[in-house]
């Protein structure tokens, strides 16, 4: 459990950048298949 928490702490600073990257991918997917 502690190792998961430690990994989480290290991962959190990258989370907004990962989310922003995924947002761009999902937007591209939508433009390609739903418009």
């Amino acid at each position: 459990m502690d190792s998961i928490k430690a990994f989480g702490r290290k991962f959190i600073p990258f989370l907004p950048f990962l989310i922003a990257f995924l947002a761009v991918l999902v937007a591209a997917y939508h433009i390609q298949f739903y418009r």
Partner: protein
Amino acid sequence: MENPTNPGTDSLAPPTAGFLAQNPLLREFLRDQVPMIVVVFGLGLLAAHLQYGFVPGGDVAFPIAGVRVPLWHLVWMGFWTGYLMAIVGEASGIFSLPYSMSVLEFTSVSVSPTSLITTFLNPFGALLGYWRGKQWNLDLALWLCIGAILGSPIGPFIRVYWLSDPVPFKAVIGIVLFFMSVHLWIQTTSWYLQRTTRQREFKERFDKMMQARLADGEAPSGLPSDFRIVTEERSWKRLTISYWGERRSFSVPAMVLIGFIVGIVASALGVGGGFMLVPILVSFYGLPMYVLVAGTIPFVIVLSITGLISYTLTLPMLTGVSIPPDWSFGLFVAAGAIFGAWLGSKTQKFIPEKYLKSMLGTITGVVGILYVANYFWRLPFQI
């Protein structure tokens, strides 16, 4: 009856109780956020049935929005806009609105009241936490909210009579995005950081206390038990508050005027107004984020509901023009935004703000310039 494998605990107690006791954030999420997210998503399904008789999505277009978009995409849009904006300390509407228009192609006037549904519901998850943490002062919120009540009914008329066409509307959104980009970039400069030394000292004192809480196994986002935002002086002219040894004074007419102007602009666009109110309260009054939420969160809720009432009731009654929001669209986005805003507020302290603000400042700046440029020259691509 004592638990033989873990002396000192009750063997009859469910095993999850101990697990949740050791994970206060998970407990808070399950207790406060999950019920709210489930209820708002359920309201979205109910609203779809009541408004259309079916649930729109990826196969069948949302009739008012006029777009096909899967429900998961709406929840995802709410999540990421709510998350990123909670980290930089402003409402999610200013991100979700351009995304709805440019990516989802929801460009009718109804996008504004639909966005107000999200900005109305989005802060409730955070509001619960702030109320429990005593980050609450009705006197601070009152005059801003009165300004919002006076100003936000005017915005929808501006939207319908002067900004109903998507191109000039996007140009105005572009100006707002550019303003926000400049604000985000300024926050990364050493000049700004030196200028806000007092706020930084307050934050450092606060962060030390947070570390102590973490070491004790408590939730890092909690506040000290002695934290209060206390009203020192209250009159028609002046309001003075104090919090944790700090003291701030406000002119009441100025607070009402700020709420009024932000109310007009925000309801005309269909956003919560945090993008204007937060910089004003930080720059002019030097309020730290932990305190200004006591004013901005109730302000965004009041502004959104009065703006929504103006779009759905006042505007049709006075002009005969009906601008219905797409209730289900807004509620599905809100379900994701509640979770995103909560997660953002809990992880904010661990995020390298400088890089994030630079990145978001660049994106909002580029989109803002393109929106404004598209008004003067037809761009070779669709935006």
